[in-house]
């Protein structure tokens, strides 16, 4: 018998996705597709003001409208001690406002009615009397003398300051700056944007009045963590709460937090005794749910006369909105921002961060990013390009000169991160080769001589993902492990259940492939389930590119556990000692006699029918994986832009993306993830923006104002890869969902700045719209 039988769906094979079957037919089950019998609909009334005292709420007219079952206010919630809830960052957040509203779009009241139409009609009939207060819309505003105190209800809160946080070494950094040949400074604002998944957030709360069990269908990226938070918030016993996260229409971080709507719908279902559905409209999604970024950053890079980076100093002011509700590990107030030394061997660094309350929506989430890595990567990559321009060095050469060298891994950064593996020069070389860099530089010169405005941008990012080792990473004390439970059925088919939750990443395919690789069961024979807390093992969920690094590792480990048991069963079936058995994917055979073998399917059947004496029946297991370290995906992105001098329009002519995410389990899916991230990075760089006028009115509250790139604007990507396995991940994989959003904005903006550098322009903050480019050119007297 040949030992080279092909096993379909192993690691490295781009098999087609298992989940496609339902989505292609319109048979996905998204939250809003569920209809429970006797279900009511909820609509939320939101504040039109950014900051106002609530003088009165009159619900009498609304309450008597057709179909209305209840109108819920903060006062009613307060009677059940549910007017406030804890946030993921240890603060509190209003569920329904009782005293003040603190941002435009804040939840004020909710109508529960028989139909959506009735609920919305009645919502419009609620009368709220507000006393409008001055609004704070930036950290500078928050710290200014005489700024209104936003969190006046918080004991001991005397101003709008939330936290001060530091990393690195101030003394050694100061000393290095004192001796520097040159210091390059960049002050930049990474503006507020929004993950804006195409499906908005929502839930259906169904509290059984007989048993008290709360079943809550919810658009959640982290159903288990939500269950625990719900138990803590509501006081319901945790076994009486079941969160079901069905198919999710994109998350990108937006579906990690607990939103007031979830709490109100659950309370309403509990009080009324009927299921209550709440689904946001787009406006609600954009004005009230987890935003991203909003960091004001200043970076100083010290270099010596040879162009060697000596030290990095960074300060950031974080605009956290009205409640400190960032979704991030407890120990890190500014997320993982201190990865800010990036891909460079910078001997010393010092990072300081201050967070502020403002009258803006709360809940800083990592929009396709590992907890504020995007802001860090943007700052260092922009700073490095500016330094190269200022020093008159080639931006690629300057990067190469300062890269952490392949032989330095594992590398401990100046802020204490231990990078697992990397080969940065290699990724750079692949990108430059693909780009035809040398020729392109000549081409740029030629075009510039003809009066064209064109440039090249490079970004060589390093990400830090896969949170995390539980000792350092927790959310509300829950250690950030993840889990996989594998059941092999007697016929050799399998069910894999995970603590993660796919939102389009293709978990049903990728995780099946890991089992195929480790246990030899064809991917098509493995069902993967996620999202039901009553059936899945406990896990922290899918965000921060952690599914493959953590749950993927758990899947490999549980498969290996079962393989160990399978070896014992094979030994019994083949009447050979365990150490005499060889494993090849899908079967054990006796060393030297490849014909004497048992397939995993035969072994699975035996696990239920013909076990060795004394062995427990079945072939099932569970593994909780606590990663020993983070993983550090990296890559080099390169962008070529052409700028229209007359209109300021930027056209991306080329975009080359070379990613190294370690071992690729399904290369097709990995590439798809990168495409998506490059596009969201493009959107952030050029058009996505949530901004506010001085009264705190949100601009960017629908898709006519919050701009998402279409196929027409989006560049065509040229892809490349290198593979540097993670030494500590059981499969060598690193996670890839977010690399491209993290790394690409700086590449796009660097290209624009490179194009404008001949005119002495050194910065344009995102989004780089035509108006800003035009203004920059005009300021230097350039026009059509």
């Amino acid at each position, binding site marked *: 018998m040949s030992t080279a039988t092909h096993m379909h769906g192993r690691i490295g094979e781009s098999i087609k996705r298992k989940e496609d*079957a339902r989505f*292609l037919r*319109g048979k996905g089950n*998204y939250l809003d597709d569920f209809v429970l019998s006797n279900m009511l609909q909820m609509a939320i009334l939101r504040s039109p003001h950014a900051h106002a005292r609530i003088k009165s709420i009159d619900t009498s007219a609304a309450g008597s409208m057709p179909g209305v079952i209840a109108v819920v206010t903060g006062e009613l919630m307060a009677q059940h001690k549910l007017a406030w809830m804890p946030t993921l960052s240890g603060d509190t957040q209003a569920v329904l406002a009782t005293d003040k509203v603190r941002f435009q779009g804040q939840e004020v009241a909710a109508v529960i009615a028989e139909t*959506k139409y009735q609920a919305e009609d009645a919502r419009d009939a609620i009368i709220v009397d507000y006393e409008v207060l001055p609004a704070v819309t930036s950290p500078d505003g928050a710290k200014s003398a005489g700024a209104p105190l936003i969190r006046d209800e918080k004991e001991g809160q005397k101003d709008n300051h939330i936290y001060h946080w530091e990393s690195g070494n101030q003394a050694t950094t100061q000393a290095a700056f004192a001796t520097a040949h040159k210091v390059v400074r960049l002050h930049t604002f990474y503006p507020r944007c929004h993950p804006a998944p195409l499906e908005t957030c929502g839930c259906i709360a169904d509290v059984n009045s007989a048993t008290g069990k709360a079943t809550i269908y919810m658009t959640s990226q982290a159903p288990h963590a939500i269950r625990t938070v719900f138990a803590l918030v509501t006081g319901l016993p945790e076994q009486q709460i079941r969160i079901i996260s069905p198919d999710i229409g994109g998350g990108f971080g937006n579906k990690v937090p607990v939103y007031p709507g979830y709490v109100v719908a659950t309370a309403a279902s509990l009080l009324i005794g009927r299921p209550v559905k709440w689904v946001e409209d*787009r406006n609600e999604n954009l004005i009230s749910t987890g935003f991203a970024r909003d960091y004001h950053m200043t970076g100083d890079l010290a270099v010596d006369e040879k162009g060697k980076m000596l030290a990095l100093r960074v300060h950031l002011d974080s605009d956290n909105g009205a409640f400190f509700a960032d979704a991030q590990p407890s120990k890190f107030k500014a997320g993982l921002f201190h990865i800010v030394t990036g891909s460079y061997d910078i001997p010393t660094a010092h990072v300081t961060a201050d967070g502020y309350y403002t009258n803006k929506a709360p809940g800083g989430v990592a929009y396709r990013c590992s907890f504020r890595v995007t802001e860090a990567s943007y700052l260092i990559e922009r700073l490095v390009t500016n330094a190269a321009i200022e020093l008159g060095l080639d931006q690629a050469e300057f990067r190469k000169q300062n890269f952490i060298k392949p032989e330095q891994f594992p590398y401990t950064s100046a802020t204490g991160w231990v990078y697992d593996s990397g080969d940065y020069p290699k990724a750079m070389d692949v990108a430059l080769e693909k780009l035809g860099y040398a020729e392109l530089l000549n081409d740029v010169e030629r075009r510039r001589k003809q009066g064209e405005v064109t440039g090249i941008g490079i970004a060589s990012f390093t990400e830090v993902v896969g949170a995390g080792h539980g000792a350092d990473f927790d959310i509300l004390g829950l250690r950030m492990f993840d889990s996989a439970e594998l059941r092999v059925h007697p016929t050799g088919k399998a069910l894999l259940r995970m603590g993660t939750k796919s939102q389009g990443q293709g978990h049903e395919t990728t995780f099946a492939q890991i089992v195929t690789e480790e246990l030899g069961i064809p991917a098509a024979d493995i069902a993967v389930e996620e999202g039901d807390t009553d059936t899945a093992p406990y896990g922290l969920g899918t965000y921060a590119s952690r599914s493959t690094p953590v749950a993927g590792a758990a899947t490999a480990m549980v498969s290996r556990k079962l393989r160990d048991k399978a070896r014992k069963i094979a030994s019994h079936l083949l009447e050979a000692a365990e150490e005499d058995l060889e494993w090849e994917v899908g079967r054990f055979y006796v060393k030297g006699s490849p014909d004497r073998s048992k397939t995993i399917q035969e072994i699975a059947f035996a696990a239920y029918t013909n076990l060795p004496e004394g062995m427990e029946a079945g072939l099932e297991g569970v593994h909780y994986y606590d990663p020993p370290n983070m993983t550090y995906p990296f890559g080099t992105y390169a962008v070529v832009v052409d700028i229209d001098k007359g209109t300021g329009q930027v056209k991306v002519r080329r975009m080359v993306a070379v990613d190294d995410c370690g071992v690729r389990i399904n290369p097709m899916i990995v590439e798809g993830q990168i495409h998506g991230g490059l596009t969201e990075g493009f959107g952030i760089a050029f058009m996505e923006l949530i901004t506010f006028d001085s009264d705190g009115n949100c601009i960017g509250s*629908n898709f006519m104002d919050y701009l998402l790139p279409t*196929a027409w604007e989006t560049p*065509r990507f040229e892809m490349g890869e290198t593979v540097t396995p993670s030494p500590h991940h059981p499969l060598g994989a690193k996670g890839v969902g977010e690399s491209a959003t993290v790394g690409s904005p700086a590449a796009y903006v660097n290209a624009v700045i490179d194009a404008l550098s001949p005119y002495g322009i050194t910065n344009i903050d995102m989004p780089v719209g035509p108006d800003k480019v035009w203004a920059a050119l005009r300021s230097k007297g350039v026009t059509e």
Partner: protein
Amino acid sequence: MKVSMKVNGAERSGDVEPRVLLVDFLRTNLAQTGTHIGCDTSSCGACTVLLDGEPVKSCTLLAVQVDGRSITTVEGLANGATLSPIQAGFHEEHGLQCGFCTPGMMLVGTALLERNPEPTEDEIRWAISGNICRCTGYMNIVKAIQHAAKAQAAAQAKVPEAVVVAGGE
């Protein structure tokens, strides 16, 4: 108000308020939930259906407005277990991730190939520019539509092979 229309070839009718949107009629009254709601402002195309063969946004149409006309939704694309060329293309080229925009994208692709069987990449990108995808970066959606175009061209010469997707490969 009484409203009736042909949905995926079958006569369907209902009694609705004039303000009921076509997308809501399809999802709520007819329980065809493959047509999604993404933005409410006719900006995203998640609600795309074909109206007499042409793609339109069903969140910005009243159900009563299309009385007597013919609607195709994603549920009407496959022929039994056999996927249409566009559906097969999306599967083969990984043209979908979360699946939320996918029905709209596939319907636009279907209508495009009906009108223009050999579109260029620019024509494809222009045709789908009323539909937002947050996951794929459009690269593989373009390939999926090209895949379908090729398959349809090949099928001109011979009877198409059935492509069945059920539970993956």
